[in-house]
């Protein structure tokens, strides 16, 4: 796809040697003939430039071949350019790819590919472009592709504000409970599809509980719901679940996928993000308190710049929220500091734009976006915001890694504690010094006359004095080791305000025009005022994203929430709403949800209520012929999708039913200090997952995820993931069969059942099914389980009958936990 990376055949090289070198024929004669439109300029083109292009370029960029869709044998071809952009921008040598390519300064764009042109020819081309690229066809009205793109591009569905469509007439008006159901049903009606019947209460409570809190319902909760015939039963359960702290834990995890949360850097140098957990806890808390999504957006992008009204806790919370910008994987050992800085900015910008706006801004780093009307200039206008933001304390110095910035979130009490500790330490050190001084004096005084004192006076201390000194030293060592660290949080602050130049081909070695910081022209127009020089503009950018002035934010988050409830988005590509993304399968529905969110003060919990109390959500997964034929992938949502639990729900549900789940919230489970190595060159594995806390609290170690996460399609924790895939592979089965986790979990489940004072096998099997599946076993299942117990106790390799019995139960429990029913929700 590289424009001009074709390779001139060898014979051209030889041909080239015989071209007369026209040293004396500088074009620019007395009357500056190269000026556009001048006859002399055109003559210069004809005599000097056209032959040069014909010799070196036409073979690949001419009538026969158009490598990279570029032609250099016509004026229009040069101006419109190829895949990478305009080859010639009159008078702008820094923006003309032709000049850049022949200059050989950019590693990825060197033309002709095999041999650099002689300097004199490069100078001629440069001079010609600088003079306005005079050409006989220059009067032709050639419109650059860029402008065309911008005007047409704005018409694209996602770049227009969401629209309210009239509530459609539907085939079953009584089916709908809110606008959502009407828009969904209308799409089914259009295609002669009927919605699946409502799911049973048992199915619904499992689905609802897993969806909202990531855990199965207790046997009691499931039984109560199954009995409850009151009209508001569903609403009450929903409220209860939304109010439980487990809700925030569940939904924070979804958001953490989007913001590529991790407790280690990964990438090249895998060191600990020792304070990332503070951001994670911020997200859990934000969801539990139903922070308005617009505020949530502003805090993560520009929390440090929001007024906090002297409320220190709020200020710290907002500083912590900006951890969002700093969590990305960084090439911390990159020796090229400028490249490292630009790579970090790129990662921030790309993540931010994809997570909140669903646009792939990163594509415009090296060239104008090929599919969306976003230019390189737009990219560098936004990149300037992050250039003006401090993300790093420093870049790599020889022998050390780059160090990310952390904001202090130390309270007065923290400072006092640290100062007190320092005072104690100083006192203890003084005591040591004083003791040595006085003891030395005493020991030396006691020496017989004329004895020269030994070099190490302490070596002749009495045993008692030595012991005393050791104990005093021990106090110092302890105090040193226990010196409290002032709490800090990954995040950003304002840096030195600067605008960036367009980096041609993404390289800072070939800079184009400087672009003032501003919003993309696509959204704010070409006449917008650029940001002033007093701030980075980050707050303005955040405010714009969090406003209803832009067409994307509410749609993107509404679609994400839909995806997390239904298993697929209304826009399948949750992180790309651009031209290469999928089109919405039901735009009226998506727009309704987006506007509903905006109108309800951006309340996520309100959106959950609307969704889970709808008839659409309550459908069963029952198949029907028309649906399977017309829409086998269920894109229009004519039934519920059968879905496998995510990795963390698999683990959490197993710990939950086996009675082992530790429900304590928040804090860090890292064993390493901040910036400590998870993995250095010795490849020693320092990870530890020995905890029964919910999965969201387990360390997320990039490049070396916990087995359960790795196997069961966790997010890769390094890039924006709005849609996890769900694979079925044999190594998952090996884990289910042979892992120590499964052995201990099934043993715990067996123990909880059998120790429950119940010795009757039938009753225990009943309990097991209720706990694991929220239902009683069928007669066949019941018999199969009993037969299994008989046979297993027979084969089990144990001495005592009680042990055999326990082992048989453990094996049965493992089968239950392995089963499809346990890890799939209908």
């Amino acid at each position: 796809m590289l424009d001009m990376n074709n390779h001139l055949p060898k014979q051209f090289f030889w041909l080239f040697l015989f071209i007369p070198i026209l040293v004396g024929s500088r074009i620019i004669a007395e009357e500056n003939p190269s000026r556009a439109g001048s006859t002399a300029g055109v003559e210069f083109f004809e005599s000097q430039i056209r032959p040069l292009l014909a010799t070196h370029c036409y073979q690949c960029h001419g009538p026969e071949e158009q490598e990279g869709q570029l032609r250099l044998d016509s004026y229009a071809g040069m101006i419109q350019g190829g895949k990478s952009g305009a080859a010639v921008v009159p008078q702008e040598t820094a923006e003309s790819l032709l000049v850049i390519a022949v200059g050989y300064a950019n590693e990825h764009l060197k033309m002709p590919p095999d041999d650099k042109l002689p300097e004199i020819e490069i100078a001629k081309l440069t001079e010609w472009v600088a003079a306005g690229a005079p050409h006989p066809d220059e009067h032709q009205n050639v419109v650059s592709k860029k402008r065309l793109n911008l005007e047409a591009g704005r018409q694209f569905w996602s770049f227009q504000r969401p629209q309210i469509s009239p509530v459609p007439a539907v085939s079953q008006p009584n089916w709908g409970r809110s606008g959502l159901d009407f828009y969904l049903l209308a799409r089914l009606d259009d295609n002669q599809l009927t919605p699946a019947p409502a799911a049973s209460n048992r199915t619904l409570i499992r689905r609802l509980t897993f969806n909202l809190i990531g855990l199965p319902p207790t046997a009691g909760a499931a039984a109560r719901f199954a009995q409850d015939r009151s009209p508001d039963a569903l609403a009450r359960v929903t409220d209860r679940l939304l109010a439980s702290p487990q809700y925030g834990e569940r939904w924070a995890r979804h958001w953490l996928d989007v913001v590529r949360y991790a407790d280690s850097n990964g990438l090249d140098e895998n060191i600990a993000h020792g304070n990332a957990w503070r951001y994670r806890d911020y997200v859990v808390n934000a969801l539990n308190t139903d922070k308005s999504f617009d505020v949530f957006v502003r805090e993560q992008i520009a929390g440090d710049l929001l007024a906090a009204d002297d409320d220190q806790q709020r200020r710290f919370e907002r500083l912590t929220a900006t951890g969002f910008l700093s969590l990305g994987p960084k090439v911390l050992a990159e020796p090229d500091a400028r490249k490292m800085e630009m790579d970090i900015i790129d990662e921030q910008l790309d993540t931010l734009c994809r997570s909140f706006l669903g646009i792939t801004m990163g594509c415009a780093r090296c060239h104008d976006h090929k599919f969306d009307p976003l230019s390189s200039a737009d990219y560098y206008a936004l990149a300037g915001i992050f250039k003006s933001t401090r993300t790093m304390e420093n870049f790599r110095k020889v022998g050390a890694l780059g160090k990310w910035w952390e904001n202090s979130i130390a309270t007065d009490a923290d400072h006092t504690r640290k100062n007190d500790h320092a005072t104690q330490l100083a006192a203890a050190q003084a005591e040591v010094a004083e003791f040595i001084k006085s003891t030395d004096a005493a020991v030396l005084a006691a020496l017989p006359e004329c004895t020269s004192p030994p070099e190490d006076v302490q070596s002749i201390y009495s045993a008692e004095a030595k012991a005393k000194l050791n104990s005093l030293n021990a106090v110092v060592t302890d105090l040193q080791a226990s010196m409290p660290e002032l709490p800090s949080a990954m995040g950003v602050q304002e840096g030195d305000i600067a605008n960036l130049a367009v980096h041609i081909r993404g390289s800072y070695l070939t800079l184009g025009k400087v672009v003032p910081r501003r919003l993309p022209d696509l959204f704010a127009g070409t006449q917008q005022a650029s940001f002033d020089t007093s701030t980075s503009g980050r707050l303005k950018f955040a405010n714009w994203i969090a406003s209803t002035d832009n067409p994307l934010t509410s749609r993107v988050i509404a679609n994400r929430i839909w995806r997390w409830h239904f298993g697929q988005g209304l826009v399948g590509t949750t992180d790309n709403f651009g031209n290469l993304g999928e089109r919405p399968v039901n735009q009226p529905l998506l727009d309704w949800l987006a506007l509903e969110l905006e109108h309800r003060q951006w309340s996520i919990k309100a959106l959950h209520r609307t969704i889970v109390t709808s008839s659409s959500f309550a459908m069963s997964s029952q198949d029907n012929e028309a649906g399977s034929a017309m829409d086998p992938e269920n894109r229009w949502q004519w039934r519920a999708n059968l879905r496998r639990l995510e990795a963390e729900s698999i683990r959490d549900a197993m710990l939950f039913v086996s009675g082992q789940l530790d429900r304590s919230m928040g804090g860090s489970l890292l064993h390493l200090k901040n910036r400590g190595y998870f993995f250095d060159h010795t490849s020693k594995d320092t990870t530890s997952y020995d905890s029964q806390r919910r999965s969201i609290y387990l360390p997320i170690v990039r490049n070396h995820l916990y087995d359960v996460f790795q196997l069961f399609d966790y997010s890769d924790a390094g890039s924006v993931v709005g849609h996890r895939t769900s694979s079925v592979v044999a190594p998952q089965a090996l884990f289910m069969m042979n892992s120590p986790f499964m052995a201990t979990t099934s043993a715990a489940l067996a123990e909880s059942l059998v120790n429950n004072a119940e010795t009757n096998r039938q009753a225990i099997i009943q309990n097991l099914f209720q706990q694991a599946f929220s239902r009683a076993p069928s007669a066949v299942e019941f018999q199969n389980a009993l037969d299994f117990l008989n046979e297993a106790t027979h084969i089990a390799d144990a001495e005592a009958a009680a042990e055999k019995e326990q082992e048989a139960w453990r094996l049965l429990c493992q089968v239950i936990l392995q089963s499809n029913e346990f890890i799939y929700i209908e």
Partner: protein
Amino acid sequence: MLKASALGFGHLAFADLLNKVPAAAPANPLAARQTHFPARAKRIIFLFMKGGPSHVDTFDRKPKLDRDDGKELPFDKPRVTFAETGKLLRSPWKFKHFGQSGIEVSNLFPHVAKHVDDLCILNSVHGTNPAHGGACLKLHTGSDNFIRPSMGSWVTYGLGTENENLPGFITICPTLAHGGVRNFGSAFLPAQYSATSMGVASQEAKLARVKFAKNEVTSKDLQRLQLDLLSKFNHEHLDISGAHSDLESRILSFELAFRMQHEIPQIENLAEESEKTRSLYGLDQAVTEDFGRQCLLARRFIERGVRFIQVTHSNTKVQWDQHGDLLNGHNANALEVDLPIAGLLTDLKQRGLLEDTLVLWGGEFGRTPVAQGTDGRDHNPEGFTMWLAGGGVKGGFRYGATDEYGYYAVENKMHIHDLHATILHLLGIDHEQLTYRYAGRDFRLTDVSGRVAQAILA
């Protein structure tokens, strides 16, 4: 849509691959697949020398470096370097001509040198990154700052495996630093294509096992009983919930796992090998035993149809990363790998496997011809050496060259993308056609570059 398969199951967005790869739709994403053109190699063993072995001290002799020892480098050093370096430093090793080809190899590799007529030595590799992490990622995935699938994953995606009871891509004792799992992960390619790892670099190879392939507490009989009950429960559930490919696939996955846990330990068991073979790989000597084991495992896996196997030499002290004490460090490293690698080449040849097995040797970069400190060399991604053997490459052949001191690749330069393109070509894959659509874009191992080095094809 795919229904069921061996290692991989369920719905996979395969339409894209099927359009590109001229093969009939396979029932199994890991089923062996037809190539774009006849393959010269069917499988690949990558002997990865973590840390960056010095090319000017091994396979790229520079007489001028000896002559000008202690003088300034007569041209500019790269704009970006990893560490401070000083003047030219001669190689402390002697070089000798070997084989019919007469190629020079230093006495760091006396055993490999005997195979020089089978080696295709690439002296002009360049284009990784000056730091280990970036360079490892670049070499393994083609990108040093984006998360991309590893070359083993691309190869497995393109070719499938020839044994449905085994993974298509295995990595033995991989390093966990400097990219870690990313170096053999599948990134956005389906999970079936990521490597199955055995052990880690900090572990002795004799302890390396495929995870969870063995049950420590439950006997095989009891496990069979469990799986039978599981199948009954799952089928009853299936009857109620209605046909669903994921549910059906998952039922099959347990049966496959049961077979895998039988097959894998057999392959891991080197006791089956003769004394002669064990000693060929150096298993009878303490210094070569560890790496020898890895090489022997590699042969056992490829014999059984594994497509891509990586073996890592990553001495836990400093690997091949001799910023100082080059002499002792490289001596120790080479001693551990030289005999086992030669043994592997001999063994592959005598079994007729070398013809269609490609062996790739090298590190993430080479080392500078100029000294770091008094007796070390810094990282050098500007020009270094890797070699290939077997699988359709010219033997006793040198391709490309660095400058007269060995700093920059200058002749027939082979960028990492070119290396990848060439390897795929040898395996019968057109690197421009092996694409995967992700987030709305077609991705390739070679990104937008890559040129096949035609001159090395046998």
